[in-house]
């Protein structure tokens, strides 16, 4: 448990910062909704004049602006990105900081099996993410409720909101796997930004080109909010893919961490 506690202590400040971000940002953005709804007729007119490709790239479906859940699903595109950034950065740094700070020899020469070290680090990261998720879910329920005086479709809302957790788990495991594999990561933040925005961009392109193939390369697009709203369900094959990859990265990271030579600090 000592590694878990120490990790939690090290991520205390950033966890608080993320909690505040979600708790403040989401209600703030959601509060802009009445503006869009009041003007929804005008906005629809305007949007209908825009080329299809632009709408696709921005993931704008004119119907999104008519209800609070629709508006939430639009906002969530960017919230999902921040969720990915947080999780990926955490996954990368929870492993790579030991190399960067040259503490890896210190930690791995202690009387703890490597498996326990990995599992404690994973648990600590999950705990940090869990706290952010609680903050996100509370903020989401509260702000959508405020914008929906006549109630809202809770199931659709929940399906969309839950993808926050899926995205975070996916990117956490990906980050830990990458950090185990590449033990010379100098800056977790720059790699995070590169990967996250790369994936986001590929997602945009896949929407414009309406390309299934590209969608597979963009984990952020595994959960298509338009589809969820229309069908009240996830796309099974993308949901399965997301979970299989998440478990695969988690397992691979674990195995490599246990078997790998620790490079000497230089």
């Amino acid at each position, binding site marked *: 448990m*000592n590694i878990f506690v*120490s990790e939690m202590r*090290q991520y205390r400040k950033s966890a608080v910062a993320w909690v505040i971000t979600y708790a403040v940002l989401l209600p703030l953005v959601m509060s802009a909704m009445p503006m869009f709804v009041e003007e929804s007729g005008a906005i629809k007119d305007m949007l209908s004049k825009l080329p299809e490709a632009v709408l696709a790239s921005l993931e704008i479906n004119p119907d999104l602006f008519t209800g609070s859940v629709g508006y939430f699903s639009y906002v969530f595109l960017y919230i999902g990105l921040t969720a990915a950034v947080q999780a990926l950065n955490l996954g990368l740094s929870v492993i790579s*900081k030991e190399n960067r*700070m*040259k*503490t*890896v*020899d*210190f930690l*791995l*020469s*202690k*009387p*703890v*099996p490597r498996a326990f070290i990995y599992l404690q680090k994973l648990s600590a990261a999950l705990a940090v993410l869990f706290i952010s998720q609680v903050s996100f879910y509370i903020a989401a329920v509260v702000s959508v409720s405020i914008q929906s005086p006549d109630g809202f479709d809770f199931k659709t809302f929940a399906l969309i909101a839950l993808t926050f957790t899926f995205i975070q788990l996916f990117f956490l495991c990906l980050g830990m796997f990458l950090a185990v594999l590449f033990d010379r990561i100098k800056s977790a933040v720059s790699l995070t930004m590169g990967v996250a925005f790369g994936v986001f961009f590929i997602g945009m392109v896949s929407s414009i080109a309406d390309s299934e193939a590209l969608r597979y390369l963009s984990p952020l697009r595994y959960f298509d909010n338009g589809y969820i709203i229309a069908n009240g369900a996830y796309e099974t094959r993308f949901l399965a893919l997301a979970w299989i990859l998440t478990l695969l990265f988690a397992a691979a990271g674990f195995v490599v961490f246990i*078997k790998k*030579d*620790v490079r*000497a*600090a230089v």
Partner: protein
Amino acid sequence: MDANVIEINNLTKYYGRKKRHRGIVDVSFNVAQGEIFGFIGPNGAGKSTTMRVLLALIFPTRGEARIFGKDCIKEASEIAKDVGYLPSEVFYYDGMKVIDLLRYSASFFKKDCSARIKELSERLELDLNRKIEDLSYGNKKKVGIVQGLLHSPKLIMLDEPTGGLDPLIQQTFFDILREENKKGATILFSSHILSEVQKMCDRVAIIKDGKIVGVRKISELRNDNYKKYGVTAANPIDADYFKGEGVMNYVTDKNSASFMFKGDINGVIAKLSGLELTDVSIEEPSLEEIFLHYYE
């Protein structure tokens, strides 16, 4: 109980995906209970590689090592309970104070180490309440020392421990190590500086290009009876003049020659008397010079 704390048999490590980069090849030696054992060789010879295998930080290509009679890879975390390790690199977690790191380190061992932390840091003049990242190189090194010794380990492994320590602190550090040794701790000590090994150790293993070239007692090395000769003559000295059995590190330059010699002194004296000398010196060689031929 087994008399050897460390037993290394044909330990071999090649690095890289294709196992091309030599780490160590067929390293074998034992370290007895209660011994202070030196491990010396130039940079890149394989000292750290050997230690890192012993600590299960890296995995051997073949061969095995046992510590306290246990397999150093399979039973690594069991062994680690009684091992204190000081890495050659200084390290710190961002934002941690000295005391935080030491408490974290102590939390891995199921004993109360607080008195020991206090005692060691006082002797090494280490301020517990400063952030580690703000410390000088030498002070960070002290954090490493206290961290390695706070649980009173039975085996202490030190990888190039003295870099950055001023002579007084170095002396204190050596005193602490000797006390630990008196209490029964075995010490494995790697260095490329012979004089510090000479001061501390009972025996040394010499490693060069990944291979052990000799394991010697320090006392034996000193009594090796090599003498160092320096000769200057009035006339040029023949390049082969002093060559023969027992001569090493032979260097000539026109009128002068220097070499080390072990054997019958009379032969050398006879040769000396055949020259018209302007200067001669016969001295005790330093260990460095004795070792030089291992390194070459």
